[in-house]
Structures are given as structure tokens and as C-alpha cells.
């Protein structure tokens, strides 16, 4: 269960906006978090609070394969990302590192910036506390659930 304030973004948010390449010369998670979303919203890293939720339009995380993008989002304290759709590599990177991502066109359209939202990934429901609305979403397929349940791909491999 995740609950937090929503930071809303548009369509086709790319990984250069999530974490600009000029900061890719490090693997320090805290440093990456401090520049999270810098080119889309320079104040984001300062205003985001632990547990907050990002909501975006279609094709979130398009562009480069940099895992620094979901790492920066996770390290910034974001509890989950909801979007109409996700770019492929961003999507697999998020699952591999255990950042919950949820595809819900309905939630993406209805949720507004600043709303308070709670997400139940087990039941597959999103509750908009501000607007008193509920949105459903498709649960992960079993293959992906196994990776998420293990705590990420490397944890799954350790168990093997």
C-alpha cells in the first residue's frame, strides 16, 4: 500500500528529463535523487516528500536505458509511478529494481496535481482521496510478480 501527494507530469517524459546525462558520471543514489526531474521541474527534488506519487501521461520514461532514472525517482522517496503507459526499458528497469509502476489510463487522466492518492498493488486499486474516486488497474502478470515479490531481479537470482 502506498499513499502520498501527487506530482503530475505530461506525455513522453524522457529519461533525459528524469535525470539529465550531465549527472550520469556517478552511481551515488543520493546525488542522483538530488537532480531527479531537474529538466522537467527544477524544484521537484526539493519539494518531493517520502511516499509521494508521480502520475504521468503516455510513454513515461522514453529515451535512454539509464537505470539512473528509476533509481533517482526511488531514491528521491517516490513510492510509485502511475502512467497511461510506460516506455519499455524504463518499465523493465523499474521492475528489476523494485520501483512500483502502474499502468492506468483512467487514473492518469483523472488524477490532478496535488491530489492525495493511495495505491493497493495487491488488490489492484487506486483510491483518489481528494476526489473520492477509485480507479482499477491490471495487476502484473505472474512472471513480473515473482520478480517484484523477490524484491527485484538480483534478489530473485540470489535465491536461485
Amino acid at each position, binding site marked *: 500500500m502506498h499513499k502520498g501527494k501527487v506530482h503530475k507530469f505530461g506525455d513522453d517524459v524522457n529519461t*533525459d528529463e528524469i535525470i539529465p546525462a550531465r549527472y*550520469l558520471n556517478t552511481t551515488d543514489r543520493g546525488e542522483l535523487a538530488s537532480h531527479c526531474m531537474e529538466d522537467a521541474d527544477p524544484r521537484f527534488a526539493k519539494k518531493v516528500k517520502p511516499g509521494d506519487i508521480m502520475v504521468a501521461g503516455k*510513454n513515461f520514461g*522514453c*529515451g535512454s536505458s539509464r*537505470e539512473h532514472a528509476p533509481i533517482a525517482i526511488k531514491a528521491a522517496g517516490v513510492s510509485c509511478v502511475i502512467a497511461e503507459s510506460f516506455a519499455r*526499458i524504463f518499465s523493465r528497469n523499474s521492475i528489476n529494481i523494485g520501483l512500483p509502476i502502474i499502468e492506468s489510463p483512467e487514473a492518469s487522466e483523472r488524477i490532478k496535481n496535488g491530489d492525495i492518492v493511495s495505491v493497493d498493488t495487491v488488490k489492484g486499486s487506486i483510491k483518489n482521496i481528494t476526489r473520492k474516486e477509485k480507479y482499477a488497474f491490471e495487476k502484473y502478470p505472474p512472471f513480473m510478480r515473482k520478480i517484484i515479490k523477490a524484491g527485484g531481479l538480483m534478489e530473485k537470482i540470489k535465491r536461485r
Partner: protein
Amino acid sequence: MTKKTNSMPYTITEKILLRHTKLKTIHPGEFINAKVDICLGNDITAPFAIEEFEKLNLRDVFDKKKIVLVPDHFAPAKDMKSANQCKILANFAKKHGIKNYFEVGRMGIEHVLLPEMGLVVPGDAVIGADSHTCTYGALGAFSAGVGSTDLAAAYATGECWFKVPESIKFIFSGRLNKWVGGKDLILHTIGDIGVDGALYKAMEFCGPVIEILPMDDRLAMCNMAIEAGGKSGIIAPDKITKKFVKEALTFGKKHGVGQNRRGRFYLSDPGAKYSKVYEYDVRKIEPVVACPNLPSNVRPVKQLKGISINQAVIGSCTNGRISDLRLAARILRGKKVNSAVRLIVIPGTQAVYLQAVREGLAKIFVEAGGVFSTPTCGPCLGGHVGILAEGERAVSTTSRNFIGRMGHVKSEVYLSNPAVAAASAIKGRIAHPEEVL
């Protein structure tokens, strides 16, 4: 093998993936673990993978011959932090006896280097922690960009998880117009279907135009499959592929890479299923430019002639090959770069560099008033060797024009083919090659 693939009609992509599993059949949408032939990492993505792999405390990687490490993004190291990232790669290669680590002086932009060295052959399943890994589809290989954790997992297991993609077929017919190449075909396609038009899909390029398209143009096309959201791009391997791979294997051996694989030439079956089919008459396609801030924002060069530029970049994993430099040199020969423009030419690899010197192309660029750089991804991702200041504008043969991609968030990138970039450098504004010849 034949038994496995004759059971039902498959696309090339499905055949290659099936071949890399123990499964008897394969279906789009299915999750699989597939063996990989090559796993690639660079100075940005490999450090995370190495960190994760070392946490497993394994003595060895799954197969040191199948791991390729190329410091190319911020190399030659642009600053101390980047130098440290490169050092992590070098140390890891040394520790695990990985021969395919390409140090500065022997390296190149990864997606130009690997095909050139014969490291990827038709029928391979390749993963790379770099989104443009889809480039190798031009060789008839399944090739997809993944993340650092995927790479770490592959270092340990030799496998990667995939959702078997549906394929989209793109048929190109007609005769190419002058100055139109693979870059224009792919930009036109992305402009048509959008930056998520092929999300999670394999993009299969075919038709009479593709059948005679030179390898460098095929590589440029598959390279940008990711800009349409594609998982991979692929072109059926043929005579052109066979000749290219044969030469590459010889070249690789000469440089100590020594691959002894000829590859497997898969073709899509007549009854193979495609989620969509697009047909393009290339006679209608002119040289195009993708305007800021998405690669899908495509317009004909002729409509953009009023746009002044500060910089022209010719290079990258999209257009840093010898035929790209030849094309640019043909435009720039005996001409001068506009006084308000910085021309930066970056050959993709040391071999491309040397060939450009031998053929006198380097001389043409320098005499025109341009820079001829050592291979690096450099400015493409706003790394180094040509970062844009606030309000500046570049025409570039690279693959992305996102906000702030080449520098300041208020700078702009226009994507084009090498001939358009060269003509624009001379004119000081976006220009059609026929304006300067």
C-alpha cells in the same frame, strides 16, 4: 533447430528468441528467459551492473567471451568522475579476463564498433545496457536495450527475461530520391507512427528499398527503432549482410577479437503474424528533419530553411560510419563552414577515423573550418565535445532532440541526415544539400 521452427509460421524475431530458449513454441506476449550471445555495457551503465554483480560474490562471469565493455559516452574521460566510471570497467575486465574491453585508442561508439569488429552475427540474441542496442537488428540479430540490473543478471546467468514482442512490418517500395537515406526513412517512419507508435514491438523493415539498402543505412534505421518505442528493429539478413559480416569477422580477427561464428540467417515465414503493416512509397519521401523536442516532430527540410543554427554535429551511433562521413565530405569539399557555425565531425570508431584520414575526408572537414574529433558519444547526450549554451541551436545527425539533450534546457536540437547537416553548416541555417552543390 528446423524441427523447432517449422511448427508454425514465425517472424525472424520469434525464431531467434525461440532458438535461445528450451521451449518448443513461442508466442507474442509470453514471458521467457533467453540465453544471450553478447551482453554490452558502457561507462554510464556498466558501473551499476558491475556493482550489482559483485554483490553476488560469484567467482566468475557466465562467459567472459560474451561480455563486451566499451567506455564511449564520456570517454576519453571528460572529468574525474567519468574517469572513475571508466576505471571501474577496466578493472572489472581485468579481474574477470574479459578481452572485449575496448580502451580509448582502440574503442569507438559501441554500436558502430561491435558490428565493425564482427562481434554480432545474424541470428544472435544481444542485450546491451544502452537503448540504441537495437542497432544490430540490421544484421538480422535480435537485439534490445536493457538496464544495468539486466546486465548484472546476465553476467551471472547468461540469460535475460523478455516478453516476446509482437512484430510490426514496415514495407518500403519505390525509388529513393536523391539525398534521402536510411536516416530519412526512419525519421519519416517515426514521424508517421509517433514516439510510442511501436511501443514494446519488434519493427521489421522490409521491401524492395530495404533489400538494396547499404548496411550503414540499415544500421541507422534499426538504431532509431527505440525512438518509436520499439523493443528492436530487424532486417532480414541477405547478401549485403553476408558480405558485411564476412569482412567484419576478418577485421575483428585482425584486431584480436577472433570470433569464429558465422551466424544463422533467419527469415520470417510467409504466414507470420504482424500486429500492423505499414507501407511507404519512398518516392514521396524527401530529406527530413526532426524538430525539437521529439524525434517524431518530422518535417521536410524545405519547410525549415529559415532556421539559423550555431552548431552542426556529424557523428554518433546513428550516423558516425564511413559512408556518413563520405556523404558529409562530398558536400563540404572546397567549401567553408559559415562563420557563425561550429562544425563538429566525430567518426564512430578508430577504423572510421583512420579511413577518413586515408580518403582525405578529415582534411576536407578541417579545411572547411570544422573540428575532427576522436570517437565518442560526446555531444549527443550533452556529455562533452560540443555542449550547447542557452538559446543555441544545433543540426545534428544524432538520434534524440529531447529538451536539454545537447546542453542547456533552452537549447534546441534538429535531427537530420549527414548531407543536410553538412549543407546547414555551410549555410548557417537548415539547408537542403542541393542548395550548396
